[in-house]
C-alpha cells in the first residue's frame, strides 16, 4: 500500500473501560501542518500520544509515508514529540538535551556535534548551549524542546499545546516564531491545541474534535466559512447558528420574531412555498440600535464586557444566546434592536425543503 503523508485510519483508543477516541480518520499530506482542536477531554492529546506510539490503539491504524506504525514501538517510529510542559531533561545542558536522540540512535560524535550546532543556530540558542533547562525562559525552553525533537529529523513532528505554557503576552510573538521554525521543516506537523486562534493561524488542515469524535476537518478558511454545526461554529468562530425559514417575502428567524428582507441576506428565494435553512451569526454580523427598524429584532442585553477596542455583548433573543462585538456603549439588562450588518449567507437545508 502506498499512502503518502500521515494517515489515521478508523482509530479508536480506550483508557481502561472508557473510549477516549472513537473511529477517527484523518489524512495530512507531506509537509503540511494539522491542528487538532477541541475542548479539554475531547481526546486530542490521546490522538497525539497514539501517533507517538505512547498509547496503544484499540482499533485502527497509524500510517506514515506508507509505513504502518500501529505496532511499531515509540523508539522506532521517527516521530518527534514536543510535550506540553516541554519535558526537558533537567540534568542535561541545552546541548545535551538536543543531542539526546542522536546519541540514542548511535550517531557518531562528529556528526552529532555538527547537527546540534546547526540546530542551536537555527533556534538561536547557541549562546545558551551550556545552560541547564532551569536557567532558561519559557520561550527558550520551547525552542530547546523543538530543536531536540527536530534533531532526529522526524517524519512527523508532534506539538502538544505548544504555547499554553507561555505568558499570554508572549504568545503572539512565539506563535509567529514557531510558524517560521515549522515552515522550515519538511516533516508533517501535528499541533494539539484548545486555542482556535492557534489552530486557524498555524495549520493547513484543522480537525475539530468533541467527545472523542471528529466533528469536522478542512482548511482553516473552509471551517471558518462553513462550520459543520453549532459546536464548531461556537468553538471555532465564536458564532451561533440560527434556524431560519425562507418564504417568498423574507427570511424568518426566532419563531417569526425576526423577519429579514432578502436585500439584507445572501440567500435565494425558494422556487415555491417555504424552505428551511440556517443563518450563521458571527460577532460582527449584527449592528445594535436603540430604535426599531426594518429587519431588526428586539434583544435583551445579558452581559456587556468593555475590552478596549470594542464591547463584547451577549444578547438573548427568544431564549437563544448570540454574541456581538459592538463599538456602541450598551447597558446590561436593557433591550436593544439588532439588525444585520452585512449580507451573511443563509445556508439552506436541502433535505428539508418543504412545499
Amino acid at each position, binding site marked *: 500500500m502506498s499512502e503518502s503523508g500521515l494517515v489515521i485510519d478508523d482509530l479508536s483508543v480506550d483508557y481502561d473501560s472508557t473510549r477516549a477516541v472513537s473511529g477517527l480518520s484523518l489524512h495530512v499530506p507531506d509537509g503540511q501542518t494539522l491542528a487538532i482542536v477541541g475542548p479539554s477531554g475531547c481526546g486530542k492529546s490521546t490522538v497525539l500520544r497514539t501517533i507517538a506510539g505512547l498509547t496503544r490503539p484499540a482499533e485502527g491504524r497509524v500510517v506514515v509515508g506508507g509505513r504502518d506504525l500501529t505496532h511499531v514501538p515509540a523508539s522506532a517510529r521517527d*516521530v518527534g514529540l514536543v*510535550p506540553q510542559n516541554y519535558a526537558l531533561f533537567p540534568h542535561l545542558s541545552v546541548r545535551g538535551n538536543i543531542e*539526546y536522540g542522536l546519541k540514542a540512535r548511535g550517531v557518531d560524535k562528529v556528526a552529532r556535534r555538527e547537527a546540534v550546532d546547526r540546530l542551536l543556530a537555527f533556534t538561536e540558542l547557541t549562546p545558551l548551549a551550556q545552560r541547564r533547562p532551569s536557567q532558561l525562559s519559557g520561550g527558550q525552553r520551547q525552542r530547546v524542546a523543538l530543536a531536540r*525533537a527536530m534533531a532526529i529529523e522526524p517524519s512527523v513532528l508532534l506539538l502538544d499545546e505548544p504555547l499554553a505554557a507561555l505568558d499570554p503576552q508572549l504568545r503572539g510573538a512565539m506563535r509567529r516564531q514557531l510558524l517560521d521554525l515549522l515552515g522550515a521543516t519538511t516533516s508533517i506537523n501535528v499541533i494539539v491545541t484548545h486555542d482556535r486562534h492557534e489552530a486557524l493561524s498555524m495549520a493547513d488542515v484543522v480537525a475539530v474534535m468533541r467527545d472523542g469524535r471528529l466533528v469536522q476537518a478542512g482548511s482553516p478558511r473552509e471551517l471558518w466559512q462553513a462550520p459543520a454545526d453549532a459546536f464548531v461554529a461556537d468553538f471555532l468562530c465564536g458564532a451561533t447558528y440560527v434556524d431560519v425559514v425562507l418564504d417568498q417575502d423574507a427570511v424568518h428567524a426566532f419563531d417569526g420574531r425576526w423577519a429579514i428582507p432578502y436585500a439584507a441576506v445572501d440567500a435565494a428565494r425558494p422556487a415555491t412555498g417555504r424552505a428551511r435553512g440556517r443563518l450563521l451569526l458571527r460577532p460582527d454580523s449584527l449592528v445594535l440600535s436603540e430604535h426599531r427598524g426594518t429587519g431588526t429584532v428586539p434583544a435583551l442585553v445579558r452581559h456587556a464586557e468593555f475590552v478596549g477596542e470594542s464591547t463584547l455583548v451577549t444578547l438573548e433573543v427568544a431564549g437563544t444566546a448570540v454574541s456581538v462585538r459592538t463599538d456602541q456603549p450598551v447597558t446590561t439588562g436593557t433591550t436593544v434592536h439588532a439588525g444585520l450588518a452585512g449580507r451573511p449567507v443563509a445556508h439552506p437545508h436541502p433535505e428539508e425543503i418543504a412545499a
Partner: protein
Amino acid sequence: MSGATARFSSLGAAVPGIALLVAFGVVPLAVLTVTALGLGATGAGEEPGLTLDNLTQAVTSPRLRQELVASVVVGIGSVLIMLVAGIPLTLAMSRHGGQVGHGRLTSVVFTLPIALPGIVVGFFTILMLGRTGIFGQVVPALGGAAYTLPGIFVAYVYFSFPRVIGPLQAAMSTFDHSLVDTARTLGASRARAFVSVTLPVVLPAVVQVLGTAAAVTIGGYGTIATLAQSERLLPLSVADRLSNGYQVASASGLAVVLALLAAGTLAVSRLLSAWLERRLR
C-alpha cells in the same frame, strides 16, 4: 514593631519542641557520652576513670568489629536490595496515579509491614527459614537459614520494606513521566531511558531514602534479638551489656558508636542528596 511581635510569637511556638529536643536528645546523649568515657556510672567489673576503651572496643575487639561490619552491611545492603525492587514499583504506581493493578488495595498491601515491629519480622523469618520453617521443610538446605547472616539479611530486607516503599512512593509521585515518554520517542530503549533519564532525575530522592532507611535498619534491635544464635549485630551487644551484669559504661560506648553510625549514614546521605540535587539545577 509587627516584625518583633511575629518573632516573639514564633519563638513561643518553638519552645515545646526545643524543650523536648533538649530533654530527650541533648541531655541523654551527653550523659551517654560522659558514661562512655568512664566519668559517669559504672557497672559490675568496670573501673571508673577516664578511658577511651569503651568507645574503641567496637573496633579493637575482633568480635565487636565483626558485629559492626555486619550491622553496616546488613543495614545498607538490605535497603539497597529493597530499592532495586522498590524504584520500578513506585515509578509504576506514580505513572498510574498511585495505582498498580487494583490500586488502593495494592498500595495498602505494599505498606502493610509498617505496622509490624522488628521482633515480629524476626518471628516471621523463623516461621519461614527456621529449622522447621516452611521453606526448610521443602528445601532442607534452607532449614535454620534464619540464624545465618544471609537469613538475617532476608529478615532486614523485609524489615526495610515499608521504610523504603513509603518514602519512595512520596518521592516518585512527583516524577514527570513525560521525560521518559520523550526519551522513548527520541529513540531510547526502555533500559536506556531508565538509566539516562529516570535514574539521574530520581537519584537525589533515592539517596535520601536510602540513608534514612539504612539509619533505622542499622539500629533495629527487635529482628536480631529473635534471630541471634550464631550471628550477631551491634544493637544486640548494647542490650546484652546492660542486661548481663549491668556493664553500663561499656554499653554506653557501643550505644554512642551505634548512634554515630546511624546519624552518620543519615548525614552522608543528606549531603550526597543535596549535592546531586544541585547538579540537576
